[in-house]
Each structure stands twice: as C-alpha cells, then as structure tokens.
C-alpha cells in the first residue's frame, strides 16, 4: 500500500482519515520532547503557567539524537521507547497535541486520550536513525537548551516515514498485526 502524504501540524480531518496500519510520509514542522522535557511541560500545566511552545495541532517526536557533525542538520535520529512518556501523554493531548511519534507499547490511558481528543500514536522504525536523519532538514532548539539532547527541538521534516499504531477509533496495530501472523 502506498504511503499517504500528510503535512504537519495536523488537523482533525486528517486525524480522522487515518487508521491503524496506515503508512504515512510527514512533511512540515514537528517538535521533539523526551522524558525530561515532558516532565517540565506537565509541571507548567499543573501550575497553570504558559508553555514555551503552542501544542495545538502539533506532532511530538520522542527522540534523543546523536550530536550532529559539522555540516549535518542532525545526527542519527530514530525514535525512543514511548512508554516512558505514558504518564504525561494524556495531558499533552488535553493541551492540543494531535500526534506523537515513538516506538513501542502505550498504556490504556494514552489510547483512551487518542479517542477522546482525536489524536494519533505513530511509530517510526526504531533503530533506523541514520535513514530518519536524512528526512530531517533543519533542527533548532526552541526550549530547555540546558537539557542537551533532551531539549525541545523544532524539526523541519520532509517525507518522514511513520506508521499509525493507535488511531482515534481505538484500533491498535500492535494487537491486530500480531494476531494476523501468529501460528
């Protein structure tokens, strides 16, 4: 099946067109955040303080790249394990985030949040850091520079490949895919 081309940030219409198992190529602007940045963002939310970035419609990519060599936009940049962000993810969706990209299993609370807020959980191929780095054209720190590789970065991506794992309808590729090929 040909991958669907989508642009970032996302609209509800596009979210609702996508189903678990769909391959997509993302172009546009996405943001990075890992454990430490999530912790800081959610602390601000709890205190009712403004966030350093507007999450409305945004993709958040869970990544901690290798340092860029001179002349590179970014180093090796594959996804990290998403489960570590589970505790923070429902609140991120409440604040307008539309999709997150990582790898691996999510909690039921995250899957519920996808249905409630019309969101998507996608996986990029874990360990394909060299290939994925070539689809990232520009990378700038926009918040928490003190966190180094864990700072929030703004990425300009072109045809960034990902697969929808959990959609807004409660479908789950991890559960369905394995069932189909089990013997």
């Amino acid at each position, binding site marked *: 099946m040909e991958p669907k081309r989508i642009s970032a940030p996302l609209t509800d219409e596009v979210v609702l067109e996508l189903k678990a198992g769909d391959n997509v190529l993302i172009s546009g602007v996405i943001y990075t955040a890992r454990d430490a940045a999530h912790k800081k963002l959610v602390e601000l939310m709890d205190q009712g303080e403004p966030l350093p970035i507007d999450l409305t419609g945004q993709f958040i990519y869970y990544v901690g790249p290798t340092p860029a060599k001179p002349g590179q936009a970014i*180093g090796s940049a594959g996804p990290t394990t998403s489960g570590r962000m589970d505790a923070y993810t429902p609140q991120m969706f409440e604040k307008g985030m539309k999709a997150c990209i990582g790898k*691996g299993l999510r909690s039921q609370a995250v899957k519920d949040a996808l249905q409630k807020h019309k969101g998507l959980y996608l*996986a990029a191929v874990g360990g394909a850091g*060299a290939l994925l780095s070539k689809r990232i054209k520009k990378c700038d720190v926009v918040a928490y520079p003190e966190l180094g590789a864990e700072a929030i970065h703004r990425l300009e991506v072109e045809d960034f490949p990902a697969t929808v794992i959990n959609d807004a309808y409660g479908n789950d590729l991890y559960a369905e895919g394995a069932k189909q090929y089990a013997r």
Partner: protein
Amino acid sequence: MREIAASVISDHVAEMCQDANIYLGEDVFDALKKSLETEESPTGKEVLKQLIENVEIAKNEQIPICQDTGFAVFFVEWGQEVHLTGGSLEEAIHEGVRRGYTEGYLRKSIVDDPLYKRKNTGDNTPAVIYTELVPGDKVKIAFAPKGGGSENMSSVKMLKPSDGEAGVIDFVVNHVKAAGPNPCPPIVVGVGIGGTFDKVAVLAKKALFRKVGSKNPDEAFAVLEQKILDKINDLGVGPQGFGGRTFALAVHIETFPSHIASMAASVNINCHACRHLEREL
C-alpha cells in the same frame, strides 16, 4: 614477557567504539537480508527494507546506525603472559570510550548516580567491563554498545530443576512476547541457563556477543535454540511489532553448570542494531 602499553589499548577501544556504531556486522546484515526473503507481511517487508537501507546510509555517510549508541560493554580475555605498561586496564578502556564517543559524535547516554541526581557523565563512561585471565600471550577485546530500549527488556528467573525444558521455553517465550515491539524487533535473544543469579545474567549478555547465526556447540542446546526461535516467530509480532514472521533473527543460548537445587535462567534482548566487534592484539 610481551608488553602492551595502556595507550595502545585506548587507541583500539576508541576505534572500536566508532566502528561498531557505524558499521553493522556482516552476520547481522546477512540475517536481515535473509529475513526479507522469508517475511510474509508487506508492512514487515517495508520495515526490513528500511533497516537494510539504514545500514547502508550509516556506512556510506558515517552516521551511527542508531541514535542510542549504548552503554559500552566489554569482555576482555587477557593472556596471563602479557604485561600491561603505563596504566591500568580499566582506565585504558575508559579513556578509549571517552575519546571514541567524543571524537565519533556518538551519544553520551550514561548518568552517574542511577537514582537521585542522574547527571550525565558527559563522555559515556564508565564502561561495563568483564575481564578474564587466560593462558597465552594474546589479548582479545570484544565490545558491544548496548542500547537501553532492548536492555530494559531483560530478566532473570530462578527456575526449579523440575521446570525442565518446558520451563525454560515458557520463560523465554513469554518474556519476549511481553516485550513485544519495545526492543525494536527483529531482535536477537540471548539466553543464559545455569550458574548463580549473577552468573546467569552475564551468560545471556555473552550470548549476544556471538555471531548471529552461530549455533551452540552442544547439539541439544543448538536444537533448543531453533525450537525457541520458531516459537518466538510464531507469535506473529514481526518486524517492529507491526505483524509478520520475523520477530527474532536468532536465539543464542549459553550455559554453565548448576547447583543441584537450582536452574537459573536469564533473557537479555538485543535489537536488530546488534552491534558487536572483536579484536585480537
């Protein structure tokens, strides 16, 4: 007596850190290519193609295969007729890691205090080092950068001797099933059987240093490796957990004699970025 300078060890280690992270071994690469021929799922095939392309991009453009350039793990076999000059072995290895990870633009993923401060050491040290004194005048250094995502999916279980073969199979297969997509499948599964609680964990780690596709020299364990591999692939989890026939590329079992009351077992998982390198000096 043969002498080796600590600085020579550091130079080799620095090179090995960079090479292992950029060039995937032929053994793993061949296993990936072979799995593309047998994979039935179209999405699974797509993933395998991306992984093969990734290895080529990494090599051609000198980009690390994966951004998690790992905890630096070493198994050193030191010939007892070799004298190390100008420093200690541990410090020589740490110096090599420091240089390799800094000069090679590799990610520094180690924090000093594991519980409270968790402050990055800034140079990916310390390494985890196992040293064995062996007869002869050669030194063998084996290195693997071990990713956190797959390392987190590991386990030790003190089975009962009466659990038998079925107990080992259940433990390994159920454990790998629960890990599912998290350790970036296709995976390589290291299994330890025997020894003590601590010994069995090291056996599973050592199993991951074997060439992918190699068999346990003991026929019975070689058969068990294949049996467990088939069961794991029959789970249908497939590449990246998207569904398919290639959940694991290999199962490697390492064993050690056991106490009459025990049968320790362990699983240590590696991802397809199963990076390992060996040098003999």
